[in-house]
């Protein structure tokens, strides 16, 4: 499989409509594994790294899940191609900085991606659309079990899987979900939620993980600890917290519809207006406005069949995707022009927001006896 094929298909997790897809964009589970008694990638010399790579890569490529896979050495990818993979969350920003001695292997559907010699010898991740942490874990766990029979994996009776960073030791697992929370942001409740989540030992991060800014009202929530708790317990705990956040987000949206409809319509109208008519747009502005459009689709102000073009624009308007599509290197200003042009094109035939179609949930205050009598 070639890079152009990766580029031309958006990846199943983006198109799929998993459970709770209105709020949960995607679920990811990654496992960190290392070979016993081999220097971790950050400490290994170039020859050692290459040896590990040559040892590991054939087994990864031979996985039944990796038939017709995209497999590439990092030094053979251009900076732009690496950035495209980062924007799709198929490799990490750290991995994009790697060269000789590192590789990435991913399946055709872009639901499984394995980084070789990132911070650990193996970083395997499964991505699913919506809230599907359990099934993402199942996939990556199966792959792990297959590889475990071929490779001598560093495992300690007491400490579990041994990783380069002590923060990952034990299960080596990081489970995370990308949440779209415009309701909580617009009603100024998001900080409260983040603080509560942090307090129970879970991490909240921006769009591209550690140390990145939250844009487009997108937040990543993940487990912080990996030792002393079983994988399925971690996933169950995380899922429960995410379900609570989903409820809070829906409550916040209903509250906005009922108590602050004018603010909400103003936001949606402005997003529609600016995206439809602007001629220059930064990626941050695009993400923030597209987020409001997505909210508009969720609430019924735009027809459901307009969801996909909006979701696709989230990815297509990212800097590297723009340049890869246009086949040229562009400076920031040129990118902003092109980004606005692509968005205008997509929204040309987009219907105006119809606030009358917004679905209001039945008033909670309806006396319950009334329902019982029906």
């Amino acid at each position, binding site marked *: 499989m070639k890079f152009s094929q990766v580029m031309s298909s958006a990846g199943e997790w983006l198109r799929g409509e998993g459970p709770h897809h209105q709020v949960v964009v995607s679920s990811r589970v990654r496992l960190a594994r290392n070979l016993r008694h081999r220097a971790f990638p950050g400490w290994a010399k170039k020859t050692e790294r290459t040896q590990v790579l040559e040892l590991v890569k054939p087994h990864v490529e031979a996985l039944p899940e990796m038939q017709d896979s995209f497999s590439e050495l990092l030094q053979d990818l251009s900076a732009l191609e690496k950035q495209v993979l980062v924007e799709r969350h198929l490799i990490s920003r750290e991995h994009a900085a790697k060269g000789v001695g590192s590789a990435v292997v991913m399946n055709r559907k872009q639901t499984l991606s394995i980084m070789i010699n990132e911070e650990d010898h193996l970083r395997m991740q499964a991505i699913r659309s919506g809230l599907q942490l359990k099934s993402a874990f199942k996939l990556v*766990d199966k792959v792990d079990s297959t590889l475990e029979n071929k490779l001598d994996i560093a495992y300690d009776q007491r400490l579990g899987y041994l990783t380069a960073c002590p923060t990952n030791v*034990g299960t080596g*697992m990081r489970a995370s979900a990308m949440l779209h929370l415009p309701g909580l942001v617009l009603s100024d409740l998001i900080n409260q939620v983040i603080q509560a989540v942090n307090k129970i030992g879970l991490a909240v991060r921006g769009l591209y993980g550690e140390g990145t800014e939250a844009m487009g009202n997108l937040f990543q929530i993940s487990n912080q600890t990996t030792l*002393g708790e079983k994988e399925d317990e971690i996933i169950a705990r995380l899922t429960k917290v995410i379900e609570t956040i989903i409820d809070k987000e829906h409550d916040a949206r209903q509250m906005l519809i009922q108590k602050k409809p004018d603010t909400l319509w103003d936001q949606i109208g402005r997003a529609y207006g600016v995206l439809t008519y602007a001629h220059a747009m930064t990626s941050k502005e695009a993400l923030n406005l597209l987020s409001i459009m997505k909210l508009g689709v969720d609430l019924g102000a735009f027809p459901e069949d307009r969801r996909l073009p909006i979701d696709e624009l989230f990815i297509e308007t990212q800097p590297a995707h723009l340049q890869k599509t246009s086949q040229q290197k562009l400076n920031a200003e040129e990118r902003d022009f092109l980004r606005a042009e692509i968005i205008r094109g997509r929204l040309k035939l987009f219907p105006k927001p119809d606030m009358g179609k917004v679905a209001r949930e039945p008033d909670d205050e309806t006396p319950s006896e009334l329902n019982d009598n029906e």
Partner: protein
Amino acid sequence: MQKVNLCDACSKEKGVQDPTGFALADLLLGIGAAEEIEKGAPAQKCPVCGFTQADFKKTGRLGCSACYHTFAEGLESLLKAMHKGTEHVGKLPERAARQLRLSDKMRVLNDNLEKAVAEENYETAANLRDQIKQLEHEIAN
């Protein structure tokens, strides 16, 4: 995060010689992390990969899987502060499970052998030795 500006004299007093090294390990693992690991293994070097605690101080990462053994003492309190527990309770790889079963079996055989020799029960001892040899072969494979 708390930012602290230290003058030359104060930084020496607080043992901050390399400001970047200080920042990295502590940023990652919390203030005092680098000291913790140093306390456990003064001037120790990993026999497998040559990694030292000074390297950990610099990078916040370990050198290889054997480092967990080399620096076990220093790591213990670190892991305790960092995680929910100090022992892995999750997935057990098939290979490790098999190894675990075999080494349990080996222990029993060795115990019996010792007993047989002590009782001068040489026929049993010879039998046990054969079994141990076979098991060693299994473990090696």
